[in-house]
């Protein structure tokens, strides 16, 4: 019924009217206000913290330091690399790390108090890049880490890459780099906490309420039953709200002061204190035979995770697994290394390393095509992964590989744009293509979701899910799946979402996993509910073996009799029971071999191909992306308009990544200095939905959240490279980089003349 319809997303009207209350809007009159005291130097030993002057300010209630943390200091979502200290206990590892927390009656007093706390630091030697971190005798950022400054090395080894490269007809080699990127969610981090019956209640923006609950309990040194997290409406996340932000401060202050407290980050604080996208340096050597079949990839990928691991492990592994791009590559030798440094930490951001490696694998495809004298689009079609192929990790791909279909959809557009391409005095034009695959869900690890569906005696149904909707539309998608599976209009279903007291763990809203994994959990809950209703109907009809099925919201028996599910719910309620279905889904995976990286890291992959058309101004070196066509294999579009929205948003974010976004610590901590695309930078976007059903997906669906972004920057880089006749290997493609290439290209033309 509602599946496949472009329904307006739940909550849209309230958002348009400005009535939605986000985490940032939670503060109420009478709340205490918190402010963080942040260290300006790092790394540094904390010599002393003197709160006396702060406490003398009228309205300041309390100054907390690490000594006030009752539980564990070190938190983090990946259990083996839990290392982030929210209030530094003795050592400041990165600039901007919080060393004390001020609570006051007003935001002004809290801020004044934070300025008045006297912190004496003793500067220590630090490391500020991957190379510095990995140098012999480098100072250690996290001395407890067994690998020193090396957080993790991931290897993918298949066949014999060196030998295959030696035998290849063409070999291309280059180094690529990408910059650090800030998520810049519209909503800044904010929330509120209070005590209720001896438990601490926290409501804040988040992508993962159940993880928050567990880590907050650890921080307070209490059982999880003493902490309740309610996800507030969250105004964008993009991975930046996967780590804890304001929550530990809120929980700690409420716990001690037994009063409601609130905290909001400023934009500057959000830049300073939350994760960024990892900057990666990628050295790629690719080979192909004379017919244009890819033979091998040898890749070395270096990353800097900053002072805290955050999602560094996930980024490193994903970058390695996806380094080949979605191309048959029989011989693979990839080593990805992630190091600690004293930079502000990097973490999860839309795509976990895949947007970075896509720059490299797509530029290598262009270089291979040039070396072979082949058309770059044809080269991609020829090598595109298909049903029956193996990936670099040796995974055999079953049905649901829609890459060739994506390429077919954009090819006419690509060819047309190429034919229209021209250079004039004032500009040069170029067209580029970007292709990607993306594993849905966590890499080579269990990442289940759970959900419940209850048919209530009043005839309405409630869907219970822990999946955080952060604006991407999971609420609506999960409701559409539930409605379709139960044969009900969506209006008959109520949603209970993201409350640790009322819903169970659905895992993080990340890795493009909620439609596929939580969607399947909802399917399971519906099946389980149906079974209970059928059972109940049989009891009511006094026929234990009667065929009964749930059809269009009614229980219809083989003998023609029908029972309303609500009647069954009432029947069950009389006996103290409920018609409540439980669902759980964990994708089918195997862990990767630590030495070879071989295994089945994901149950399924999304595929996409995009092409971009750009115009480069020959005077200013400004690049305008004029058009992008984006074909995405989503398995099945649960809500086509939502999918199109994700694609368009991803493309615009990709324009930012390609052309302008570059986080420089201490220099770009506001939206005047840190540029993200505006509407004027948005190209004309043609979103194209490809549906190659995934047999294990709910109604065949996969995911699209991150895939929407990943091919855009490589397509733009390819287009600018074509316009200038020189490969653009470093992001962002800034004015400076374009001018350099333009000057060099014109120099060559002059010589040829």
């Amino acid at each position, binding site marked *: 019924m509602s599946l496949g319809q472009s329904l307006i997303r739940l909550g849209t009207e309230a958002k348009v009217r400005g009535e939605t209350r986000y985490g940032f809007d939670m503060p109420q009159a009478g709340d205490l206000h918190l402010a963080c005291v942040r260290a300006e130097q790092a790394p540094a030993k904390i010599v002393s913290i003197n709160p006396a002057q702060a406490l003398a300010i009228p309205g300041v209630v309390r100054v907390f330091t690490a000594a006030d943390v009752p539980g564990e200091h070190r938190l983090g979502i990946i259990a083996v690399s839990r290392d982030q200290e929210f209030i530094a206990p003795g050592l400041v590892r990165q600039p901007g790390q919080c060393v004390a927390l001020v609570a006051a009656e007003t935001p002004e007093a809290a801020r*004044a108090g934070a300025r008045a706390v006297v912190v004496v630091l003793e500067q220590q030697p630090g490391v500020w890049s991957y190379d510095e971190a990995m140098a012999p005798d480098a100072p250690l950022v996290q001395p407890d880490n067994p690998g020193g400054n090396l957080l993790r090395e991931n290897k993918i080894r298949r066949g014999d890459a060196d030998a295959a490269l030696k035998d290849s007809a063409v070999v291309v080699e280059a180094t690529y780099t990408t910059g650090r990127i800030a998520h810049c969610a519209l909503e800044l981090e904010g929330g509120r906490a209070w005590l209720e019956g001896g438990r601490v209640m926290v409501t804040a923006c988040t992508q993962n309420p159940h993880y928050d609950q567990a880590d907050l309990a650890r921080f307070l040194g209490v059982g999880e039953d003493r902490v309740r997290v309610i996800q507030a409406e969250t105004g964008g996340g993009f991975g930046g709200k996967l780590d804890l932000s304001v929550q530990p401060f809120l929980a700690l202050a409420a716990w001690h002061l037994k009063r409601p407290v609130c905290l909001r980050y400023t934009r500057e604080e959000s830049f300073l204190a939350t994760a960024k996208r990892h900057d990666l340096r990628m050295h790629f050597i690719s080979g192909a035979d004379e017919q244009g079949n890819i033979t091998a990839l040898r890749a070395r990928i270096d990353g800097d995770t900053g002072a805290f691991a955050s999602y560094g492990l996930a980024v490193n592994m994903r970058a390695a697994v996806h380094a080949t791009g979605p191309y048959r590559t029989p011989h693979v030798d990839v080593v990805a290394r992630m190091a600690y440094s004293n930079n502000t930490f990097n973490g999860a951001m839309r795509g976990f390393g895949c947007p970075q490696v896509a720059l490299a694998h797509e530029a290598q495809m262009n270089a291979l095509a040039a070396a072979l004298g082949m058309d770059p689009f044809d080269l991609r079609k020829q090598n595109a992964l298909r049903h029956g192929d193996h990936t670099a990790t040796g995974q055999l791909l079953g049905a649901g590989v829609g890459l060739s279909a994506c390429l077919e959809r954009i090819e006419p557009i690509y060819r047309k744009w190429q034919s229209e391409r021209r250079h004039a005095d004032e500009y040069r034009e170029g067209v580029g293509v970007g292709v990607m695959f993306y594993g849905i869900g966590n890499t080579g690890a269990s990442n289940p979701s759970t959900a419940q569906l209850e048919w209530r005696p009043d005839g309405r149904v409630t869907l219970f899910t822990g999946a955080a909707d952060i604006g991407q539309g999971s609420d609506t998608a999960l409701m559409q799946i539930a409605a379709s599976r139960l044969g009900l209009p969506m209006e008959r279903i109520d949603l209970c979402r993201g409350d640790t007291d009322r819903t169970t763990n659905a895992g993080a809203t990340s890795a493009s996993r909620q439609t596929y994994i939580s969607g399947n959990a909802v399917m399971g809950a519906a099946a389980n509910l149906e079974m209970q209703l059928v059972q109940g109907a049989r009891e009511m009809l006094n026929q234990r073996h009667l065929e009964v099925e749930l059809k269009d919201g009614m229980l219809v028996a083989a003998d023609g009799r029908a029972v309303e599910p609500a009647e069954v719910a009432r029947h069950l309620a009389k006996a103290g029971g409920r018609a409540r279905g439980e669902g759980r889904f964990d994708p089918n995976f195997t862990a990767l071999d630590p030495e070879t990286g071989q295994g089945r890291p994901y149950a399924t992959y999304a595929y996409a191909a995009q092409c971009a058309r750009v115009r480069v101004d020959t005077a200013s070196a400004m690049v305008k992306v004029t058009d992008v066509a984006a074909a995405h294999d989503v398995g099945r579009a649960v809500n086509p308009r939502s999918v199109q929205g994700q694609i368009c948003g991803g493309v615009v974010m990709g324009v930012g990544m390609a052309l302008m976004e570059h986080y420089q610590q201490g220099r770009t901590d506001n939206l005047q200095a840190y540029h993200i695309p505006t509407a*004027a930078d948005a190209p004309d976007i043609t979103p194209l939905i490809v549906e190659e059903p995934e047999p294990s997906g709910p109604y065949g669906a996969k995911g699209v959240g991150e895939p929407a972004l990943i091919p855009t920057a490589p397509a733009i880089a390819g287009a600018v490279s074509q316009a200038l006749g020189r490969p653009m290997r470093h992001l962002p493609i800034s004015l400076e980089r374009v001018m350099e290439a333009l000057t060099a290209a014109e120099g060559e033309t002059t010589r040829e003349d």
Partner: protein
Amino acid sequence: MSRFLTPATLDEALNALSHPGAKVLAGGTDLMLALRQARLSGTELPELILDVTRLPELGRLELDGPAYYLGAGLTFRCLEEDPRVARRIPVLAQAAATVGSMQVRQTATIGGNVANASPAADGLSALVALDAVAEIASLGGMRHCPLGELITAPNKTTLAQGELILGYALDPPAETRGQAFLKVGRRQEVAVSRLNLAACLDRELSDPRVVLGSCFPTPRRLRDVEELIQGATPGPELWRAAGEKAAGHFTDVCGWRASATYKVPAIARITARALSRAWAQLEARS
């Protein structure tokens, strides 16, 4: 806590402005950022914020008589949209259209742009190219000051406490002048200029004006470039030579710093293109 006052008459405004600690709000697009910064850093807020947007004197737009006059309260949106501005002083219309976003242009004024004196102010370069003279009022009377003298350093002017810019008298340029404004930013809109250039050319090339912004502490007329153009033969070669000269002017003044690897070629190219466009505009008129 600041007081906020919206005077209805110029007298009322000048009286209020003579109090030390009074700050003018003309559009607020710069002032509000400064106020936020002050609030966050705990520094003092102005005692009085004076909203001058209701003063009729600041809204004058006279382009029909022999003397052109632009009120300081005109918004960039108005300058961008007004057909007379587009026809007679296109360099300002083009500059106005590049300021901030439409939302910013809707409220930001040509008075605030000058008084804030950012080295990257887009309106300022165009006004300098038009030889604008500011009309400044205070309780003590009026004074007139060319913009080149009014603006002394980044965010510094000779405006004294109690003085308010009413508007600008423009050297009537002559519709016969070809004009062009170009801006480079790191994105298509809402970008601080990396550099901007305003060019005005008369048919005889007797009084060419070339103003480069965002490269020096204040927008600067490139006199040596103007001299090169003066009386020379118009055409691509001249524009290219002028561009090279402009780039040379920049390195002479600023030396070779990191930003020069981009700016030097960009100045040469942008200057040549702006001159070429200004000339093409003249040609199109004949």
